[in-house]
C-alpha cells in the first residue's frame, strides 16, 4: 500500500458531519424508543400535547434516522474517504472547502427547520418524503452541493482509477437525485390559486395508483441508495483498512455493484403487492426481489472472505467484530426481504410488524453498526488520539447485538401472529377475531421491543461517551496508525 505521509488531509468537514451523525443518531433513536414504548403503554402519547402522539412523532423518527443520521454519516465518511482514495487533500482547493462548508451549514439549519415543520404537521404525507416543497428545495440544493464536491474532488484527483467505495458514493448521489426529484413533484397551491391558504401546502403531480407507484419506486430505493449503496461503499473502505487485508475479489465487487444498481430499482413494486397496481408490475417486483439476493450476498460474502486467514482479528479487534456482524445482518436482511416479496408470504406479512422488524434488523444491525465502526475508525485518525475504552466497546457490542436480536424476533412473532389472526376463520368460515383482539395479542411483543429499544439506545450512549472521551481525554498518538485502530485497554 502506498504511504499517505506526503499528503495532509483536511478533516474539518468530516469532523463536523461526524458530530451531526452522533447528534441525529441519538435524537432519532430516542424518539424511536418513545414510539416503541407508546405502542406498549398508550398513556405515553400525552407527554407533549398534540405534538407527542405516536402518529405525529413517527415521521420525525424515520426522517431523523434517514436524512439526519444516515445522510450525515454518508457525508462524514465521504469527506474522510474521498480525499484518501483519490489521493488529494481538500486543502488544495479553496473552492471545494467553501462549497463543503456551505453544504454543512445549510444542512444543519435545514434539518432543524425540517424537524420543526414535521412536528407542526406540515407534511406531504408520503412516507420518507414528508417534507413540504420549500424543504424539498433545500434538500436538493444541499444534495447538489455535495455532488459538486464529489465531482470536484474526482476532477483534481491524483489516483486515476476510482476505488470501489467511490463507485458507491457516486451511485448514491446519482440515484437519490433521480428518485427524490421525481417523487416530490408537486404544485404549491399558494401560487396556483392566486395567493390562497398556506404557503407551505402543495399537491402531488400524481394521483392514486400512480402516486403509489412513484412513491414506492422512491421509498424502496431510498433504502437502496441511502441504506445500502453508501454503506456498502463504507465497508469496502473501512474493513480492508482496519484489517490490513486486501478486498477478496475484484470481480465479485464488479458483479455486485452493477448487479445491485440494475436490479434494485425493479423491486420497488413489492411494496404494492395485492394492491391496485397492475399485476405484471407486482410480479416483476417479486422476481427482481429474489434476484436481488445475488448482488447483496455478493458484497457481503466478498467482505467475509476478505477476512480469510485472519479470523483471529474477530476476537482481538472489536471494530472488526462490529463490521463482520454488520455484514452478517446485511445478509440476514437481504434474504428476509425477498422472502417477504413472495406473493403468498406478502399476503401475511404486509401491513404487520414483521415489516417493521425487517427494516430494523437492516438499519440497527447493518447501517448503524457500520456507521459506528466507521466513526470509531476515523476518530483516532482525525483527532490523533487513541480510542478511550475497549471495555466500553465490548459491552456496547453485546448489549446492542442482543437488542437487535430481541427487536427482530419479537417483531417477527408479532407480525406473523397478527397476519394469521386477521385471516383466521372458524369452521363456518366466519372471521374468528375482531380487529382489537389482534391488537391486544401483540402487547407482550411490544413490551419486549421497548426493552430492546432501550438497550440499543443505551449502547448508543456508550458509543457517544466513548467518542466524547476519546476526543477530550484519549491518549495522544504521534503517527497515524496504518491499519488497526489503537484502542486503550
Amino acid at each position, binding site marked *: 500500500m502506498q504511504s499517505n505521509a506526503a499528503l495532509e488531509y483536511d478533516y474539518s468537514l468530516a469532523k463536523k458531519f461526524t458530530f451531526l451523525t452522533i447528534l441525529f443518531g441519538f435524537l432519532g433513536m430516542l424518539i424511536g424508543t418513545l414510539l416503541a414504548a407508546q405502542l406498549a403503554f398508550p398513556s405515553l402519547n400525552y407527554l407533549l400535547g398534540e405534538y407527542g402522539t405516536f402518529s405525529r412523532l413517527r415521521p420525525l423518527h424515520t426522517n431523523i434516522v434517514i436524512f439526519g443520521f444516515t445522510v450525515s454519516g454518508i457525508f462524514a465518511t465521504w469527506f474522510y474517504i474521498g480525499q484518501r482514495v483519490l489521493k488529494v487533500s481538500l486543502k488544495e482547493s479553496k473552492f471545494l472547502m467553501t462549497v463543503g462548508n456551505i453544504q454543512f451549514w445549510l444542512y444543519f439549519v435545514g434539518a432543524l427547520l425540517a424537524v420543526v415543520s414535521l412536528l407542526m404537521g406540515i407534511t406531504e404525507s408520503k412516507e420518507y418524503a414528508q417534507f413540504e416543497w420549500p424543504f424539498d428545495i433545500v434538500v436538493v440544493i444541499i444534495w447538489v452541493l455535495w455532488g459538486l464536491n464529489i465531482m470536484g474532488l474526482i476532477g483534481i484527483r491524483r489516483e486515476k482509477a476510482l476505488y470501489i467505495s467511490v463507485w458507491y458514493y457516486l451511485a448514491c448521489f446519482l440515484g437519490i437525485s*433521480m428518485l427524490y426529484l421525481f417523487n416530490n413533484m408537486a404544485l404549491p397551491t399558494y401560487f396556483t390559486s392566486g395567493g390562497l391558504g398556506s404557503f407551505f401546502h402543495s399537491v402531488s403531480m400524481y394521483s392514486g395508483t400512480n402516486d403509489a407507484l412513484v412513491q414506492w419506486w422512491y421509498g424502496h430505493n431510498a433504502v437502496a441508495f441511502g441504506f445500502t449503496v453508501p454503506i456498502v461503499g463504507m465497508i469496502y473502505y473501512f474493513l480492508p483498512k482496519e484489517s490490513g487485508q486486501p478486498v477478496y475479489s475484484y470481480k465479485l465487487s464488479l458483479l455486485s455493484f452493477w448487479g445491485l444498481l440494475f436490479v434494485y430499482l425493479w423491486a420497488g413494486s413489492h411494496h404494492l403487492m395485492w394492491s391496485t397496481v397492475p399485476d405484471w408490475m407486482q410480479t416483476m417486483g417479486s422476481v427482481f426481489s429474489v434476484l436481488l439476493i445475488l448482488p447483496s450476498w455478493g458484497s457481503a460474502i466478498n467482505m467475509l472472505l476478505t477476512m480469510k486467514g485472519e479470523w483471529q482479528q474477530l476476537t482481538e479487534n472489536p471494530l472488526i467484530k462490529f463490521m463482520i456482524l454488520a455484514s452478517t445482518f446485511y445478509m440476514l436482511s437481504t434474504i428476509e426481504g425477498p422472502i417477504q416479496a413472495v406473493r403468498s408470504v406478502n399476503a401475511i406479512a404486509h401491513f404487520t410488524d414483521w415489516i417493521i422488524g425487517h427494516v430494523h434488523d437492516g438499519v440497527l444491525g447493518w447501517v448503524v453498526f457500520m456507521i459506528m465502526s466507521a466513526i470509531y475508525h476515523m476518530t483516532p485518525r482525525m483527532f490523533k488520539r487513541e480510542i478511550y475504552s475497549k471495555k466500553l466497546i465490548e459491552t456496547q457490542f453485546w448489549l446492542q447485538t442482543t437488542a437487535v436480536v430481541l427487536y427482530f424476533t419479537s417483531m417477527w412473532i408479532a407480525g406473523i401472529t397478527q397476519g394469521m389472526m386477521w385471516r383466521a376463520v372458524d369452521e363456518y368460515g366466519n372471521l374468528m377475531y375482531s380487529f382489537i383482539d389482534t391488537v391486544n395479542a401483540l402487547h407482550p411483543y411490544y413490551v419486549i421491543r421497548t426493552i430492546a429499544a432501550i438497550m440499543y439506545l443505551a449502547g448508543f450512549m456508550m458509543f457517544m461517551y466513548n467518542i466524547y472521551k476519546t476526543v477530550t481525554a484519549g491518549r495522544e498518538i504521534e503517527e497515524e496508525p496504518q491499519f488497526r485502530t489503537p484502542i486503550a485497554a
Partner: protein
Amino acid sequence: MFFRWIERNPFFMAAWISLVIAVAGLIEIVPDFAKAARPVEGLKPYTVLELAGKEVYKKDNCIACHSQLIRPFKSETDRYGDFSVSGEYAYDRPFLWGSKRTGPDLHRVGRYRTTVWHEAHMWNPPAVVPGSIMPAYRHMWKNAADIETAYAEAVTVKNAFHTPYGPGIRKGKEAWEKYKPTVLAQARKVAEEMKGTEGVSKEEVLKMIDSGKVPEIVALIAYLNRLK
C-alpha cells in the same frame, strides 16, 4: 476491459450508472401511467370540507397506523367491504394507502361508522373500543381546519389536472369569500349530527362554525364519512 476503462473515466461512469438505474423506472412506471389515472364511473371529487378533513388526516399522520387499501382476500372483504380498485383513487393526491395496520383499514369506514361514533372515538378511543391503544385527538376540537388551503387545493387540481369541480371553484380571494359559506354550511350539517362530548358541547362546535371557523374534528369526520 470495459470496466477497467470506465473506472478511469468518471464522466462516463456517472452516465452509465444513471442509465443502469433508470431502466427499471422507465419500463415499470411509464407504460400504464395514463390508464392507472382514470377514475371509476360516477366518482365525485372531494368537497372542499372533505379536502380540509383529508389535510387533518395528513397533518396528524393517521397513515402511520391506518391503511386505505382493501386487498382482494375473503378475510379482508369480510372485514372491511369490497376490495379496492384503482379508479377509486383517481382524485387522491397524495395516495393514502399506508403501509402498516396498527389499527384497521379505513378505505370504506364511511359505510359502517357514523359521525357520532367518530366523535366519541376520537375524543376517547378506549371508551368506544375497549383495549384500544390509539391516542385521543382532543386538540381537533380546538384547532380550526384550514379550509382556505383546502379551497386552494381544489382550485389547483381543477386547473392543473381537470378534476371536475363546479364553476364556484375559481382562483383568487374574491371567489373564495363567495364560496366560503358553502363550506361552512357543509360543516354545520356534520356538526348537527354530533352529540357533544364531556369536554366540548355540541353548541360550542356549532358556535365555532358560525364564527367562520371549522373545528378540525368536523372536517375530519366529513372526510371519514366520505370514505365508502
